[in-house]
């Protein structure tokens, strides 16, 4: 069943059109990747979903049309967007950053459970709770951003270029956790990624964007074998 559906979504930054009618679907419990070159509209697609760019067309989440809603009310429906650059509050402590993931939640006990769950995935954060988040390494900040998203108990996780600037070993660890969240906990994930190889290995379905349009969409196992995708994005 479709958790998120985009139908013919267009978006622009002032006079500059970034999306020329994108349609895509993320089912309940599904992990989906968006691949594409720089400027293909990957980030804009995520921003369209979380309401941080003006759009036309239909965006339906959990049966509700969210295309005209404000970002804060979309977030409250259960969409956690980890933006490019991670959106960590460098001046606040690690704990305050995590706390902010659940700051609008009403159920204190549920939040405590989710904090513990996040520590289960990221035990190192627990040792650094009082540390200023800006002093964490890039990999730790990416982990913190994901932990914060988990504290909000999302129904859909949006990840924008999580591998950017991280060492390969950290990237593998990060995607291992994403797979665990998706496959063991059934969390729906929509990930934008330059590293097509690791993304395709972690999702069930992928969309290939070219200049604001969907050029190709297929199960990830098929895309891995696709000649053009291999040549352009996988490099072998």
């Amino acid at each position, binding site marked *: 069943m479709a958790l998120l559906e985009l139908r013919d979504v267009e978006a622009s930054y002032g006079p500059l059109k970034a999306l020329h009618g994108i349609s895509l679907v993320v089912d309940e419990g599904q992990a989906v990747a968006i691949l594409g070159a720089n400027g293909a509209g990957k980030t804009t697609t995520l921003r369209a979903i979380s309401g*941080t760019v003006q759009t036309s067309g239909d965006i339906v989440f959990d049966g509700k049309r969210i295309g005209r809603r404000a970002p804060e009310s979309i*977030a409250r429906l259960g969409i956690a967007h980890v933006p490019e650059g991670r959106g960590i509050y460098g*001046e*606040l402590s690690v704990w305050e950053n995590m706390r902010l993931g659940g700051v609008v939640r009403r159920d204190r006990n549920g939040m405590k459970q989710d904090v513990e769950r996040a520590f289960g995935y990221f035990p190192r954060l627990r040792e650094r709770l009082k540390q200023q988040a800006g002093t964490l390494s890039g990999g730790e900040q990416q982990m913190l951003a994901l932990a914060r998203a988990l504290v909000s108990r999302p129904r859909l996780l949006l990840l924008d270029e999580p591998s950017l600037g991280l060492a390969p070993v950290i990237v593998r660890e990060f995607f291992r956790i994403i797979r665990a969240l998706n496959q063991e906990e059934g969390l729906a994930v929509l990930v934008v990624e330059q590293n097509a190889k690791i993304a395709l290995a972690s999702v069930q379905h992928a969309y290939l964007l070219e200049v604001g349009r969907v050029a190709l969409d297929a199960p990830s196992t098929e895309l891995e074998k696709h000649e053009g995708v291999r040549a352009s994005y996988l490099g072998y």
Partner: protein
Amino acid sequence: MANFFQHVIAGLANGGVYATLALALVLIHRATGILNFAQGEMGMFATYIAWSLINSRGLTYWLAFTITLALAFLGGAAVHQAAIRPFSHRSELTVVLVTIALLGIFNGAAGWIWGPEEKFFQSPFPLRVFDVGGVVINEQDLGAIGVSLACVAVVFALFRYTRLGLQMRASALAPETSRLLGIRVVPMLSIGWGLAAMLSAVAGMMAAQALVLSPNYMLLVLTYAFAGAVLGGIDSPIGAVVGAYTLGVGLSLLSEYVPSLGSSLQLPVALAILVLVLLVRPAGLFGRVVVRRV
């Protein structure tokens, strides 16, 4: 020595007023990124309201004080919604000009409503002195110090230990990220303006009991609060409070021990400190340099 401590106490009483207003300036600077030139006049206007409640309606001081704080909160939030928010996508200079216009509006409105003549604003504390080892302490000074410290403590506790405070800090630091976390950023900023207006009202009422109430009496207080905030760090609440107290005590001691500078040149001295700090250490004594890694 007794004389020294006596001037320290008097300086702390003034410093408390500057600190309360300086904290308001820092709240707005962190939330909106600008210096609110109308901050002192908002306190002046609130103090006139308190004066009316006491002298025209016959309320007791503390009842009038409480009602005034509630009205100041609503007024501050309303100013944000009506006069600041419409300019939020404009340059900071535009917003600063709006606050300068507000300064004039509040000042003019107070003169129009209550008249230009000076009014006596009572103190809630008795005009009594007592002697501690030769140091003569005025209870009004002690009260002003206590009220300002209490305000500062309440604001710090709010920001540090409550969900609301955390959301307000997050909204000020990174509004776009905060919206992605479901935080309603605009109401948070309005609450910040409301709190700052409450602090200004406290500063206004404490200053009025030491000076006299007139439409212009807060302009000087604002200048000292600004100098104190810059001294400690315009982005550091603790720094601004410590800076303002330091300035209050420093000026009080200066007027006693260097009378040639201290009595008639207090304002130039404060402004010289301000320029010096901006020149030598723009982040202020307590300004924290944020560590970032990419």
